[in-house]
């Protein structure tokens, strides 16, 4: 408990300090509301529109979560397939890195054309952004299996599948966790960017649309609120993935053992 407090309290106090400084700065310098609202103004706006913001947060969270899960599964499966063949690796891995390089804002309109407005397109854009880190890190982990342990499995005449399931995959867990943590943050970014293009305004508007709509009506306080909420979604997803990672590694990996 003490350790948790020692880790969590400093950043919390720092954040609160920054918020107080911000509030004081706004009171003193009185910038235009559409340029820089104060933290209290943001909270007030969020409270008024709380129902819409909560719906929006849920909507974004669901898209990001689904996109992340799809990216995780597709990334790990593809990496597992590629790890079994040098030939496939050489042919397909460079193409996979295109996922990383193509700017999402450019292909998001394509996704809308193919999948229509709404959830499918935002989930797809989340998955597209998040898949490559999972694939790259998983593949790296699978390829880095200790050759001594590979030989051990050869001695016991394990077949390819057994070797993958009982040796390569567990051995790659630290790398997989790294990839998933990166993907968690990216999934939220992908979702919000997708929402800019494909989200729809109204009752069910997701956070990305709230940002756009608020921007257009110069409601910067709502923009801040929506941005803060999407960061929160990212935090939660990242935190959940990190926690699962800690659970799976805590007993044996150097990164989690305290010695």
């Amino acid at each position, binding site marked *: 408990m003490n350790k948790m407090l020692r880790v969590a309290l400093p950043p919390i106090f720092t954040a609160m300090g920054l918020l107080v400084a911000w509030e004081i700065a706004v009171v003193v310098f009185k910038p235009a509301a559409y340029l820089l609202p104060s933290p209290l103004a943001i909270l007030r706006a969020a409270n008024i529109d709380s129902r819409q913001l909560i719906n929006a947060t849920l909507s974004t969270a669901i898209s990001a979560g689904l996109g992340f899960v799809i990216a995780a599964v597709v990334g790990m499966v593809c990496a597992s397939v590629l790890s079994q063949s040098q030939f496939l690796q050489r042919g397909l891995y460079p193409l996979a890195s295109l996922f990383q390089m193509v700017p999402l804002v450019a292909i998001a309109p394509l996704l809308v054309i193919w999948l229509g407005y709404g959830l499918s397109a935002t989930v797809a854009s989340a998955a597209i952004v998040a898949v490559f880190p999972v694939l790259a890190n998983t593949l790296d982990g699978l390829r880095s299996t200790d050759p001594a*342990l590979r030989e051990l499995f*050869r*001695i*016991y*005449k*394990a077949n390819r599948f057994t070797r993958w399931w009982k040796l390569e995959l567990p051995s790659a867990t630290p790398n997989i966790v790294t990839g998933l943590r990166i993907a968690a943050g990216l999934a939220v970014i992908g979702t919000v960017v997708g929402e800019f293009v494909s989200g729809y305004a109204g009752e069910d508007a997701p956070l990305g649309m709230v940002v756009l709509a608020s921007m257009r009506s110069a409601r910067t306080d709502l923009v801040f609120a929506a941005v803060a909420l999407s960061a929160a979604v990212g935090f939660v997803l990242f935190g959940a993935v990190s926690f699962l990672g800690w659970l799976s590694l805590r*007993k*044996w990996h150097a990164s989690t053992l305290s010695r």
Partner: protein
Amino acid sequence: MRNPSQDTVRNANVPGGLGVHVRGVSHIFDGLQVIQQADLQVKPGGFLAIVGDSGGGKTTLLRLIGGLLAPTRGEIVFTASSEMKAGESARGTSSQSTQAVAQTSSISFCFQEGRLLPWRNVLDNVALPLELNGVLTHERRDAAREMLAKMQLSNSENKMPAQLSGGMRMRVAMARALVTRPKLLLLDEPFGALDEVTRLALDEELRQLWLDTATTAILVTHSIQEAVSLAQEVVVMRGKPGRTLPAIAIDLPKDKSHRTSMEFVALCGRVYEQMTLQTEEVAGRTP
């Protein structure tokens, strides 16, 4: 040349190990000649030690015997012990898992690094060979527990390899190697990374395990004393690429260490002599 005292310490109900005959083996690996000429022989249930220069092909020879590599030339022949009957249980009916265990592979390795799976606890590590051979969970865990109990490792059942000392890890690796009741146990400098005191203790443990399980053992080691203390015959491998010299018979009873006796010292001297022969003499001395 069998010492009568050796027969009395062996349980006649236990099935014997494989006999191994390496005939005229030479091996080229990745374009490089690693073994020039290897000839050696171990009788079923025997204990042979191989000592020699680093990089002289000892480890490769062990892998050839273990079936991990196929020799470029020559042959390796296995003979079954006359005491062995197919499918018969090891010692009476110690557990139901014996039948399933008996079907698993008959050659086991023990490496210097232990090679335990870091994400599994001791019990599941020891059960691994059985698991990879399709033995059911509770059967293989029972067999693993039996083996751990035999080696007084039961308290460590749930520990992870990272929590064990080097010596303990090595003992777990030995337990894993023996859980399948192998007929041939191949050890590649298993105690090389350990301190002298631990090494001496593990030597005696290995001796006892060999006596109890009646498996055939081939030990590659850098330590002349270890070789002479444990093995019935010592083969020196010299040169790069390596060749085996004629085996030196160790005519000491194998039930105890005898490291302080005069005969022991003399035998170590003979092994040492062979190890320091000049290269031309090496070429001349091999058959």
